[in-house]
């Protein structure tokens, strides 16, 4: 640790010397200095004004209020009860009329279906199958990536959505701020944040009570208790 | 105006001499105020102390007199005194040298006098 620290300090000293060399060669006149500094000050003031005036509600993430989501998701997996998940959003909803006695639930393309499926039983005799896709993630265009759901020949076919990569910029406090506030240090933000941004998707399948469900090995299902 | 820097006569004496000439040629009349040491210093580009020394040299010879708070003035008989002094000191010295040189060159007295008579000075304005 101290070794890294010493190495870092050596780099800093080298940086200082190099910087000092360059800085001592920057020799703007007094009038040029006034112009530069004036423009820079205006830019900073403008930036601060912009920062506080911009509409940030769309993508605002108040990190402090965001739970990790891990425990809730665990409880949800144990119980299958959707109400354990906070901040659920509907991504998609499908409804089918089905009169068959049994139903095969499988992934459409032999691949494993990534999203957890929760099965809820309705009363018997209902002839509709409802499929709702939920997410705990943020409402961003990129995260709204629901799977495809089809009903065909007595099979409920689930297709993984095309994979997406989402890039986020997360700005926390500067170290000068975190030292005196218990705020978020951007450098301490870890996977949990990424997880809470992307969130967990679930597919809720509401089936008539009498329906015999055959689950293919390509799908993981949680039965609601 | 410049004093002759190559002349080895001390500067203050050169100043005094210049003032004497001014009195002689009538630029400075009797009882007229003479230049102050500062004016002289500026005119000749010299230290004012040097100029003051030139003035006091003339004052010592009673060619100038001092009025308290007003400065130096030309003494009433200054012109005559200067004339007498210069005849006695300068002219006689020059004549002596003149005669000595004539003698060295074996010039007769008559020839020398003729030479003197023939000198045609440009008229002073």
């Amino acid at each position, binding site marked *: 640790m101290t070794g890294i620290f010493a190495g870092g300090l050596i780099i800093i000293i080298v940086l200082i010397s190099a910087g000092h060399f360059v800085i001592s060669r920057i*020799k703007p006149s007094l009038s040029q200095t006034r112009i530069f500094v004036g423009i820079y000050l205006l830019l900073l003031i403008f930036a601060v004004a912009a920062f506080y005036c911009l509409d940030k509600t769309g993508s605002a993430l108040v990190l402090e209020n965001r739970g990790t989501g891990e425990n809730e998701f665990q409880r949800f997996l144990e119980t299958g009860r959707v109400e354990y998940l906070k901040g659920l959003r509907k991504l998609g909803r499908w409804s089918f009329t089905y009169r068959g006695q049994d139903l095969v639930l499988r992934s459409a393309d032999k691949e494993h279906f990534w999203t957890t499926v929760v099965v809820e039983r309705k009363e018997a005799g209902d002839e509709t199958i409802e499929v709702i896709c939920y997410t705990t993630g943020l409402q961003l265009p990129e995260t709204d990536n629901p799977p495809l759901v089809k009903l065909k020949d007595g099979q409920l076919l689930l297709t993984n959505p095309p994979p997406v990569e989402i890039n986020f910029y997360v700005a926390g406090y500067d170290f000068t701020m975190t030292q005196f506030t218990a705020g978020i240090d951007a450098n301490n933000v870890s996977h949990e944040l990424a997880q809470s941004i992307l969130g967990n998707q679930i597919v809720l399948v509401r089936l008539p009570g009498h329906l015999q469900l055959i689950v293919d090995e390509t799908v993981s299902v949680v039965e609601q208790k | 105006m410049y004093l002759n820097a190559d002349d*080895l006569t001390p*500067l203050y004496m050169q100043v005094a001499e210049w003032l004497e000439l001014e009195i002689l040629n009538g630029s400075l009349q009797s009882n007229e105020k003479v230049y102050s040491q500062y004016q002289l210093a500026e005119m000749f580009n010299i*230290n004012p102390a040097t100029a003051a020394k030139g003035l006091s040299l003339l004052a010592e010879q009673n060619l100038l007199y001092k009025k308290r708070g007003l400065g130096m003035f030309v003494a009433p008989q200054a012109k005559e005194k200067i004339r007498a002094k210069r005849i006695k000191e300068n002219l006689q010295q020059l004549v002596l040298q003149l005669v000595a040189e004539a003698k060295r060159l074996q010039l007769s007295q008559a020839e020398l006098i003729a030479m003197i008579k023939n000198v045609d000075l440009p008229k002073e304005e």
Partner: protein
Amino acid sequence: MKNVECNRLTKKYGSIYAVNDLTFSIPENSITGLIGRNGAGKTTLLKMLAGFLLPSGGTVRILGQNPFNNLQVAANLIFIDDELALPENMNLGEILDTAATFYENWQPDIAYGLLDYFSLDLRSYYQQLSKGMKSTFNVILGIAARCPITIFDEPTVGMDAAVRKDFYRALLKDYLQQPRTIILSSHLLGEIEDLLDSILLIDAGKKCLHLSMDELRSYAVGLSGNSKLLHELVKEEDIIFRQQLGKDKIYLVVRNRKIDFSAARFKGLEIGPVPANDLCVYLTAKHKGGIDDVFKHS
């Protein structure tokens, strides 16, 4: 009142004496020339007077106070040397305006007037000026500041003859308007001779002479004539300079002891004054025969 007083002032660098046991004083309102050859210790002496350097021995008093690290002395003293360390980002006009805030007697009209006269642009930068123009700007600062103690160390380096002449005249005119104590150092006396009240001649850090200009002019006489005859008349220790003129004719510069040489005049002895500048050169020369001594035996 003595504005500048030095008592046994010494400055040593290692084992070398830059200034060695100098004792002198300068009265207020006078112009003093500090004359000496290159390396005689002029700059070291002046920097001690200005309070920049700490003496190794002896004392300096400026206006009755020790000048080192002394704000009151600094407020009344300006030291101008041949290249001032001025900020590179400020133009001449800005520097003049800054100087005006520091010196209570500052004369803006004279400063701007001189700048204009010497064709220096207010918007130009000091580091871009030629050597001579830098010197010109320096002396403008020195004159316009009107400090009771004004020190110029080799102020005319790089100036051409016309500018030098104008500078001396400007200095004199300003001195006449506002007399003060001016110390002017130079390795040559010739140009400044007429301006001076007195001269302080130093050689190898030691004081050679401190005389008024008139005393200096009668300090020595030049004699030329038969060498045998001259050596009978003159004591060896009085000889300042010796030059062989012909086979047995010699030119001597000797200390003026008010000896009546008139009797010798008839034996072909010529007596004349010695120019002050030459005298200073002779007095600070290592050899009484000057450069000729080097070639004597060849």
